[in-house]
């Protein structure tokens, strides 16, 4: 599953991770790819202390997804383009270059969904 949108503002990320966790729970091997603006989903320490956004935490969704056995991959180029360092990401995310991600899609991507 490729996530190309940031955590909040649209339903895409929430809906994608919802399906991702359900799939892993059903015994399906799932890899979530964060690319483009989707890399912001991988930032740790997101919070909404004043409840202004009032939406479910996608960071918690990512952590729950990985705890269930899901794999999360972040595109290296997207991080570099946006000046995001590896240390700013949720622990457990894998940073891969574009070629490796393409190989991964071709090797494991029986069903690819882009949100």
């Amino acid at each position, binding site marked *: 599953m490729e996530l190309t949108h940031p955590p909040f503002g649209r339903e895409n990320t929430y809906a994608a991770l919802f399906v991702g966790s359900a799939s892993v729970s059903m015994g*399906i091997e799932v890899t979530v790819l964060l690319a483009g603006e989707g890399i912001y989903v991988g930032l740790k320490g997101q919070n909404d202390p004043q409840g202004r956004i009032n939406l479910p935490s996608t960071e918690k969704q990512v952590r729950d997804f990985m705890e269930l056995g899901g794999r999360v991959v972040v595109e290296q180029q997207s991080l570099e383009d946006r000046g995001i360092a590896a240390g700013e990401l949720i622990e457990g995310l894998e940073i891969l270059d574009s070629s490796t991600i393409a190989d991964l899609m071709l090797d494991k991507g029986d069903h690819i969904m882009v949100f």
Partner: protein
Amino acid sequence: MVAEARKKGTLALVLFSAPYGNQYANHVCNIADRALGMGYNVEIFLYGDAVHAHLTEQKPKNFVNIGETLARLADRGAAVYSCLICAIARGYIRDYDEGRKVYNSPITPPFVKYVTVQGFVNMIKKADRIMMFGSS
């Protein structure tokens, strides 16, 4: 027709946006129409705002009526599934009894079948081809 469908396999079409604001619903309906003609077994899943695509009594003035188009596709054998949790959030489901899986939805046409996220995952699992539209 059944033998042909077996040969072509199942095409899963996932729509993620509401009708009329963009052309994704039209794309899905057009592809479904052609795919049925080619002998595919077609399954359509309406996710997120796309549940509005099956609202009854749509009356667009200058656009193709997506609700009626879905009904015609269903008549020709396409399965039309809708996301249950998305429909509940948007007011389509009334008097939902989670234990008995019984609900009342007078604004949902009978050809639409509501499914949980697990139902959606199963649909994806068994599909031979997947096309997803509307993630904009």
